């Protein structure tokens, strides 16, 4: 084991306040789970940004590509009936 290594890469997600979403911050390198969590804490919460952290091995991330963009996402463009403003309410309707 004389070969150099910088450990596997992990993706870091941070919840900045209780109840909020976990948002992607960036990556760290770490040999194990505990180390990944601590390295993420030491790097990404230096300015009191965090309340909770997730770390996920980078190799577990699956991503869509630019080529997939149109067929994946454009079909949702014309489904405006999914938004509340699509519907006309009779005048004077309340609490709806």
């Amino acid at each position, binding site marked *: 084991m004389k070969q150099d290594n910088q450990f596997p*890469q992990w993706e870091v997600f941070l919840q900045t306040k209780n109840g909020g979403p976990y948002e992607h911050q*960036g990556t760290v390198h770490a*040999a*194990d789970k505990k180390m990944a969590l601590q390295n993420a804490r030491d790097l990404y919460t*230096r300015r009191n940004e965090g309340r909770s952290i997730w770390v996920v091995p980078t190799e577990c991330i699956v991503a869509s*590509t630019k080529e997939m963009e149109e067929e994946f996402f454009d079909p949702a463009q014309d489904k405006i009936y999914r938004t509340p403003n699509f519907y006309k309410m009779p005048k004077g309707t309340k609490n709806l």
Partner: protein
Amino acid sequence: MTEEEKAIQFQQRIDAGEKIEPRDWMPDDYKQTLFRQISQHAHSEIIGMQPEGNWLLRAPSLRAKKILMAKIQDEAGHGLYLYSAAETFGIDRTEMIAMLHSGKAKYSSIFNYPALTWADMGAIGWLVDGAAIVNQTMLAKCSYGPYARAMVRICKEEGFHQRQGYEIIANMSAGTREQKEMAQDALNRWWEPSLMMFGPHDADSPHTHNSMKWKIKVESNDTLRQRFIDRTVEQAHHIGLTIPDKNLKYNKETMHWETSPINWDEFWNVVKGNGPCNHQRLNHHKKYHQEGQWVRDCARAFEEKLKSESAAIKSN
């Protein structure tokens, strides 16, 4: 789609102001230019810890010590964000470090000058970070998503870096005779190297054309340098320091400060490895990288043991 068509489409996306993401198609040159630039930027952050680290243990007050420590730590963090952005090209940090050690990858030449007195902590924050901020604010608009995102975060965090440097220099300029001398001396030594940080003149800069076309850079070296000069000259005068340039003068028509020609022989000499600290900086990095090898081996071996143990439990 042919490569040529892909290239045209790529350029259209750039022109439309879209960001390019790691898994998108991109020309090899774009990839290589960015990888070189981001990894060198990362190395610069890391090597840049050394001149300031030289004064960390001697910082003159509790406040100064905490600030300097936090600043150097930020640089380590920023190096990490940038390595992370460079790794999106599929090249591991291990490899990048090997490139730094072999001399294949460079870092900013500014860090090959020695930090001789405490006033240098002021000068580095004020001038070196000041120059870096001008450059990085521009890079936050770069076309490559991971680089631009890293830059946004870095710019936000570096908000205090230049201010703390200027505060040190300003306090010393208003201090005892010895302190004032130290402050002026530091400005004298760091002024020209900081102007060189923006790189060669546009006409002599081999990468500028492509970098601008691809929106890796959105402003030229000379434009950025002039912005830095205009800001910094006024800041120096404000605290009673003299810019070490006999030819410095304000041009009322252009509304810019004009300076002497930069000594580019000196610049290329340091880039080629002949600066006062090139050897020292790289050796330091190699030494501690090697000394840390057993720690990394240990952590790796431990993780492998954990994995095989949990595999054994599962198979039972």
